[in-house]
């Protein structure tokens, strides 16, 4: 599975959960996204796990607060 695919999948989840379109090059972070509250954070993580067929570690779940970090985490889990 290519890295590009991980990016598309994570962006797709964020678009669905946050309810807005996200451009491929756009940077999305929890601190600048009003809709990304604690409930939606969990929703995002669970949805990404289902789409990408991975399982985040509990320690990292709280730290994955941007699109970029989420993509990197997905790639990391797929590589191991």
């Amino acid at each position, binding site marked *: 599975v290519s890295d590009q695919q991980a990016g598309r999948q994570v962006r*797709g*989840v964020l678009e*669905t*959960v946050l309810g807005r379109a996200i451009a491929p090059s756009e940077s999305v972070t929890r601190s600048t996204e009003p809709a990304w509250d604690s*409930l939606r954070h*969990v*929703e995002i993580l*669970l*949805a*990404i*796990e*289902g*789409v990408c067929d991975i399982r*985040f570690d*509990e320690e990292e*779940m*709280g730290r994955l607060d941007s699109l970029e970090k989420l993509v990197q985490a997905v790639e990391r889990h797929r590589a191991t």
Partner: protein
Amino acid sequence: MYAEPPRRADLLALSTPWPTQDVRMQVVRNQAFEFVASALRPFLAFAGLTATLQYSDYDDSLSVPIDPRADVVLVWLDFERYGRLAPAELAVWLELRLQSMRAKTKAPILIGNHPGSSGESAELNRLLEKIADRLAGVHLADQAAIASSLGPGYRDDRTARLAATSLSDLALLHTARLMGLSWLPALLLPSIKAVAVDLDGTLYGGVLGEDGAKGLVASPEYLAVQQRLLALRENGIFLAAVSRNEPADVEALFRHRSDFAIRQDHFSVMAVSWGPKADAIRQVAKELRIGEDAILFIDDNPGELAAVASAIPNVRTLHAATPVLTGRALQAFPGLFRWSRSEADTLRIRDLAAAATREHNIKTAQDPNAYLQVLQVELGIGVDLRSQLERLTELSQKTNQFNTGLRRFGAAEVSRYIQEPHCHALSISLRDRLSDSGVVAAIFLRVDGEHAVVDEVAISCRALGRQLERLMIFAGIHRALAGKKVSSLSFGFTPGPRNDPARAWLISLDASANGAEVVTIPWHADEVRRELAAAPLRLTELGP
């Protein structure tokens, strides 16, 4: 909707292009429900519902004000938080809390049971079942069954710490699916009464006209569909075959394929012809005496589904894309789930076969009394029977044709008619030499001094057409008013799209009543007693 495993992202992405009915759901909880709720939305939309959720704070004591406007109350508990209480202690306390909620709302109350597998969990669940039996309109959301099917995958320690729920994503999604497609529709929507199923490509693989009976495929997946249909039939849902084939070929098919789980006599209606399937669905509705909107039509051909849906917009449809998907959908299609199998459900299928004989008899009888005599009719009358709570509620909720009030009483309201001293809920059973129809009529009345108000009479369509309506209603009311000095009776009437038979009966009581919302007649108990005594039928007391 029926993917295995379900995927949260796919569900969240679904939108609803069709209109839905808004319902208000109050969630009384000590753990998060939000992650069920987000996935619940598309499932409910599939059932035609949109829920507005009203959450309590996380409160182990459940001391939450109940909103009387709620259409349904969900009690959503993490039982681990009551670990210091033994199951019996917890059950006693919970029953008190549920009683308190029951007193504040007429809405159905749904409570999740304990998902654990320990002896204590099982004990608590047994006690919860008894509580649900005792309290009107309280039902259990069977988390234990979901936990059993998922095993260790039901729990997720990460979400317990991060999201205030110990359910895994899979458990949350399975809960959402059952809640949206089975539990809530069973509480809030009319149920499906018949499944009309196509044959070729739906019930088996292949085309009868081309492959011949012996060439058709009965794979395990198709046999599972057949078994599932038979399970629905056991729950009182009629089966009908709707097929474009030669009737003789279909009869030969069922004769020759003894490996099929389903037989021709399992179908209450065989609508097999080369005509449009919309006509076949109308034939099914007519023969079963049910509305077209109470039918689920299943076909592997989307064109047929579209044609039927276009001709009969209210009919529900299911695309039998593959036998695996059909089998899954039949496990959880809105309107198919029943909280329990009632005696009425098992009698319903058998009773239909006797209806044709009765209709022939009534058409050929010269004298209505002679007709009743031949049938050996027996009416059982029960006054305020707690054991009939579920059936009385079902009759009020589901009866469309002979329903004077269309009040659609919930279990809590029916319970009040049973319990309160000046109110009565009457159950009337019907049996003749052809079949036992079970409890077919419900009457809800209030006594106010010398006047009685009949808020609703609901008679199952299975009991109509036997010229028994007047005798059934008067026999029931006569029994309920025995010993009371009632001299007048009024019937409330609410016009609806299909309750003309009820209106016609009220007009037969008072010809000037056409269009009236209340029909009042004098009540002479002695005259009614004489009329009942002269009628060629037997009156018995319906036991508890």
